[in-house]
């Protein structure tokens, strides 16, 4: 009898100790206030990034007239000098700028020929604005600044939203024959370099009158 009481008493003490170390209680409204203060606002971050970092730094984008010949002659140097990427894979991102002429307008992109490299074509996306090209090509967003990858990826999603709202309306007004200046983000595969099918996410496009 005494032994079994002792057993139950020890079990109860262990249970209470474990429970005490397992849970804690707070007022719900206080927790909610804390959480909303902590929640990462990807839209606000992206807006700040766009206006305070990316747009003022667009002049640092590599000139396509420089990049394409270097990619043809010395791809390794071109990738090392001008590309950005998060991981160690072969997909790398470039922020490029240049002048071109609108050659064709498709359902989901516009084809430009580069003014100084007439044989070089580049397709500016007008419909499918997805992925991390702009965020990564900028080289200005550091993954270590984020608590988790979801926040980091949401930044891309918000940047893409900004492009849809601010940039695509300008791109969609272009007509065949227009001369334009553009800044775009492109993705190239280091191992399988293909310069004949460059697809770009537009960051800034202006018609030259």
């Amino acid at each position, binding site marked *: 009898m005494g032994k079994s009481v002792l057993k139950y008493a020890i079990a109860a003490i262990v249970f209470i100790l*474990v429970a005490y*170390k*397992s*849970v*804690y*209680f*707070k*007022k*719900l*409204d*206080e*927790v909610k206030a804390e959480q909303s203060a902590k929640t990462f606002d990807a839209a606000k971050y992206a807006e700040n990034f766009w206006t305070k970092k990316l747009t003022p730094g667009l002049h640092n984008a590599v000139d396509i007239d420089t990049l394409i010949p270097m990619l043809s002659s010395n791809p390794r140097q071109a990738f090392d000098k001008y590309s950005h990427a998060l991981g160690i894979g072969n997909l790398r991102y470039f922020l490029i700028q240049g002048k071109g002429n609108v050659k064709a307008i498709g359902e989901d992109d516009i084809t430009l020929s580069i003014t100084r490299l007439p044989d070089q074509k580049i397709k500016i996306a007008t419909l499918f604005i997805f992925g991390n090209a702009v965020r990564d090509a900028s080289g200005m967003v550091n993954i270590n600044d984020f*608590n*988790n*990858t*979801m*926040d980091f990826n949401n930044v891309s999603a918000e940047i893409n939203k900004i492009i849809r709202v601010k940039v695509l309306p300008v791109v969609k007004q272009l007509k065949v024959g227009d001369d334009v200046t553009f800044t775009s983000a492109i993705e190239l595969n280091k191992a399988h370099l293909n310069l004949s099918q460059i697809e770009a996410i537009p960051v800034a496009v202006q018609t030259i009158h």
Partner: protein
Amino acid sequence: MQATTTTKDYKQQLAKLQPLIALFVLCAIISLLSDKFLTVTNVWNVMRQISVNICISTGMTLVVLMAGIDLSVGSILALGGAITAGLLKNGVEFSSFNLYMGFTILGACLAGILVGSVLGWFNGWTITRFKVPPFVATLAMLTIARGLTMLWTKGFPITGLERNFSYLGTGWFLGIPLPVWISGVVVIAAILVTNKTKIGRYIYAIGGNENAARLSGININRVKIAVYTIAGALAAVGGLIVTSRLDAAQPNAGVGYELDSIAAVVIGGTSLSGGRGTILGTVLGAVIIGVLNNGLVLLNVSPFWQQVVKGLVILAAVIIDKANNKGE
């Protein structure tokens, strides 16, 4: 007569060593083909990866020793991990009382393991109460637990967990990765249970001959429920390691883990008809599966071929096991 007995003993000893010999041969071949295989980093990497399978397979071994099977461990792993991550991140809200119950890492882990245990208990209960074949009962649980995981996570990964939680899956203690310690503790506990306790002897007895075990006074239903409960709890422990390593609870975590686990048990020499096998054998089986997975990746073998190779290895293990026990 004497010579026949000696030859039989020799064959039995050799059969016991087969998984170990297979592991050595496998390691030798892979290390010849890849200079990255026998590096310290890779060895620890393999150990980390197999620690999840060891946890699950230990529970599976107990089940298989009773001539049962548990197909739900992968789904229970996912739910255990998701419950832990969800409670750790969001706690429980009692809006009517303006009360928030938060969970510490210990509390969230215990809750995850508790949920795994309850589902395991449910497996055992349906199998013993309604005489549902273990294959069917645990197949049903596979779907139920996966559905519950989807409901709990709403189909999205639970991310942004407390930083200290990732220590469980990525941390080190005394120069050894923490998941290896966890799986080590699980294995030692299971060895003690199978070799030194009454329930361990009952498990072998039930697997060897259920009717004889019943007639000898063993409460079969109670043992079965206990074993399925342990299997569920260990699957949830695996879920904690996976969630911690990924720093996120993925709703589709653990898909196909039951197959790797059964493979480890079978390769380790546990008989699918029950009554024969050891925890250490299963550990060897899990190491073989882990080394095989790692080796095939290092050797750049296509993922599709990897599945074919793994299937063939399992088949070979069963055929060899059958050959060893011919006439028993």
